């Protein structure tokens, strides 16, 4: 996808020779709609409450000093490192479990559903889970996770693994249709078990789909508020959830609140800037398949 992309853009430039400047300028101007909220976040996060005014120039002006005091306080108030750790733990565990479990099930269902009716039914059963809104599961799940002592991070990870199963299984078994069965047959004839064939031959081949699944699952779980809010009911915070939990403590101190918002956004922005190509490619792969 990305290679294609680059080839295409190179080809376009070579073909034409001239750049469409009006469109370029319009698009750059349009960026202001994205940059403006982010600019305001940064500026407010650095300002002091005394610098907040109601005049336009005051609102748009840069802070008098770039002091990190707001951030230090926000980190203490929201227990930042703890929330960040929880978010990381939940996301990494969910992604790892998803790649292992969903790819296995995707493999079995991808290989069998054409031939066996039972597996075809299972495929539709799992994939139709995509239409079940969290709203209907939410209330029974609160009771169920409490009974099972899963009203904690482990429970949230298990729930995410289940919630992302329909989409991921569909992606994996769809991807498998492009992988020739002959590959496994060869390994199988050589005496490898189905289990070993899967891990040694098929699992590595599905690497592009692992990337897509990892990115889609990670973006979804990292930013999700509802599941941890309902299941852990305030005992543990994730990074976004901490913004909700400490909203009352920010009070009217918007500078403190915005420092905290900026801290909450920074990890994913940094991650995006580093892995931009993979993320864009993964997202397109997932949506288009």
């Amino acid at each position, binding site marked *: 996808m990305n290679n294609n992309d680059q080839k*295409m*853009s190179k080809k376009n430039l070579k073909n034409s020779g001239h*750049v*469409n400047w009006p*469109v*370029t300028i*319009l*698009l*750059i101007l349009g*960026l202001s709609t*994205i940059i403006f*909220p*982010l600019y*305001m976040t940064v500026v*407010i996060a650095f300002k002091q409450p005394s610098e907040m005014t109601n*005049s*336009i120039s005051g*609102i748009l002006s840069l802070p008098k000093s770039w002091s990190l005091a707001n951030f230090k306080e926000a980190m203490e108030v929201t227990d930042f490192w703890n929330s960040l750790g929880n978010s990381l733990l939940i996301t990494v565990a969910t992604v790892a479990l998803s790649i292992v*479990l969903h790819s*296995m*099930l995707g493999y*079995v*269902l991808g290989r069998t559903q054409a031939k066996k009716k039972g597996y075809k039914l299972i495929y539709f059963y*799992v994939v139709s*889970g995509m239409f079940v*809104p969290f*709203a*209907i*599961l*939410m*209330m*029974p799940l609160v*009771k169920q996770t409490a009974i099972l002592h899963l009203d904690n991070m482990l429970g949230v990870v*298990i*729930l995410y*693994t289940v919630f992302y*199963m329909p989409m991921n299984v569909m992606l994996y078994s769809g991807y498998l249709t492009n992988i020739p069965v002959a590959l496994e047959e060869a390994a199988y004839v050589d005496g490898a*078990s*189905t289990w070993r064939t899967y891990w040694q031959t098929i699992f590595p081949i599905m690497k592009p789909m692992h990337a897509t699944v990892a990115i889609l699952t990670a*973006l979804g779980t*990292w*930013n999700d*508020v*509802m599941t941890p809010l*309902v299941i852990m009911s305030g005992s543990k915070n994730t*990074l*976004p959830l901490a*913004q*909700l939990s400490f909203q009352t403590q920010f009070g009217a101190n918007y500078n403190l609140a*915005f420092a905290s*918002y900026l801290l*909450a*956004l920074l990890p994913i*922005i940094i991650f995006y800037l580093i892995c931009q190509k993979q*993320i*864009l490619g993964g*997202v*397109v792969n997932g*949506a*288009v398949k």
Partner: protein
Amino acid sequence: MKKERRLSRNQTYMLITIPIVALFFLFNTLPLIQGVIYSFTNFKGYGDFDWVGLRNYMDLFTDARVGKSYWFTFRLAVLSTIVTNVISLMLAIGLNSKIKFKNTLRGMYFIPNVLGSLVVGYIFSYIFTYIFPAFTKMLGGEGTSMLSSTSWAWVAIVIVCAWQSIAMNTIIYISGLQTVPEDVYEAGSIDGATGWKKFKHLTFPLIIPFFSINMVLCMKNFLMVFDQIVAMTSGGPAQSTESISFLIYNNGMSGGQFGFQSANAVLFFVVIVVISVLQLNFTNKKGEQL
């Protein structure tokens, strides 16, 4: 060499499938069934409860607050879907044309999609409450916040929902536009197709599959809107921006309406399935015509 007894392929398949599907059943289907069962009770979330048959479902259709939340959620979903798709399609065409800084611009326009919607909601809440009123005041307006108006708060939420979703839809449209071969345009330009005509008769029919992905994705996500409501309005003012998910969460979890809101959730589930199936059918038919 010791000859180990090897599992047959079918046995391995079953050993993989059964535990994973059991997990899926336990945390997806089982709570779904419980939700349906609770919807026939007057359970408050605690204590005893009685069976009430279909009474919750009948009450749903006469409950003003539930009706209001469906009306709000649908207005929001439809308008956001239209706004999002129109803007993303224009952006995608722009980003796919012969422009400078192509990769940087594409990368920048995607940023909103990776940000958490709760925090984005908080940021926009401040912008709508303090910054926009300051601008309108300067231009001679009254300088009141959209979020405090029962007739305008929902538009503010549409803006925030669209701001975030445009990123994703644009990327999908761009990948759609890249599937359109160059020679189609060349043939078209010989026939004199330019501008709007070119788009309507050449480009759009070829990217209909991507259009349908975006429509389905948008509708489903917007119908389930929750974070933005929590961050921006908490359903207010005067319950004018209570989304269905928010109402179920609020009244079901802490409002003592566990049973009643379960019925609401079942109805919501049916609505989502019906809309998705209708959309898929509609776009499949469109696809066949091509």
